[in-house]
């Protein structure tokens, strides 16, 4: 009997890292909204990481930060925040597998759905959503997960 109990204790201890994986922690997502344009040049220092990425794909000369907010997502609890221009961004943590979070992203304008997407974000990765055009530039909304988070 004691031997069996010891075996199960050891088994549980061995499986504990896997069980920990099943438990959902909060996921931090950084939302940065910027205006990319060819008017002037330069970029905000808080956009340095994105500038390197987007610079390899687009030829905008200027990136101006309009909003920078970090939200904590819990499983199946949507979090909404207003983003320029007059839109709403809704983020929902759908699933989490190890370090990668599956997040549903909805962009609405006046209650009308403009975009729905499901993205997988690992720490250090980012997904940018381009559009719409505004004045001389284009609005880009970047979603990213910090590499060092206390999730």
């Amino acid at each position, binding site marked *: 009997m004691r031997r069996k109990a010891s075996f199960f204790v050891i088994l549980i201890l061995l499986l504990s890292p896997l069980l920990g994986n099943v438990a959902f922690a909060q996921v931090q997502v950084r939302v940065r909204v910027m205006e990319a344009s060819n008017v002037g040049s330069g970029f905000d220092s808080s956009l340095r990481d994105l500038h390197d990425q987007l610079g390899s794909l687009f*030829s905008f000369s200027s990136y101006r930060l309009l909003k920078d907010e970090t939200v904590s997502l819990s499983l199946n609890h949507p979090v909404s925040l207003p983003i320029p221009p007059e839109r709403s961004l809704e983020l929902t943590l759908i699933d989490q597998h190890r370090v990668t979070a599956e997040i549903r992203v909805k962009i609405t304008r006046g209650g009308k759905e*403009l975009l729905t997407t499901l993205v997988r974000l690992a720490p250090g*990765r980012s*997904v*940018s959503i*381009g*559009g*719409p055009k505004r004045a001389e530039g284009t609005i880009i909304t970047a979603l990213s997960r910090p590499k060092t988070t206390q999730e």
Partner: protein
Amino acid sequence: MKSRCSSISELLDKYFDQEVTPEERSLVEDHLPSCPACRSALLSMENLRNLIKSPVEEAVERENFPWVWEKIERGIQQEEKPGLWESLWSWLDMISLRQKKILIPAVAAVVILILITAPLLYEKISSYPDLSVVEYVESDTYNVMIYEREAPRVTVIWLFEGPEEEPLTS
């Protein structure tokens, strides 16, 4: 006399093989000078032994049996090596780890080591390392395009909000 000779002749084999007691030896040796038959019998035994022994000893001296040693060495080399598990257990036996006093702390140490290293190993293995980060995109209102580049890793979902709008790609 005849009965004495008969009893002595029974001892001759033992005498020849040097298996007689001192008393029996005295009896045989006292009898032999006076009995030609027993002397003859003893001589026949010696001749027979020499007949067998000499050729065998000569053959052994000529032969050093190298093939025998080669065969033994080959047999040792070809002997199946013990499996990993057997080796481990024999090692455990050697250091008496099977004793509970040592085995339990050893198992506990291994478990602790696994518990410490397992999460680190799991962290190293990304869930979807090479797959796209965009699972799906839907827009009932506008056209949507996905730009992805691996180096540097860039993923952009472009929402075309008007027919005239185009992204400024390099």
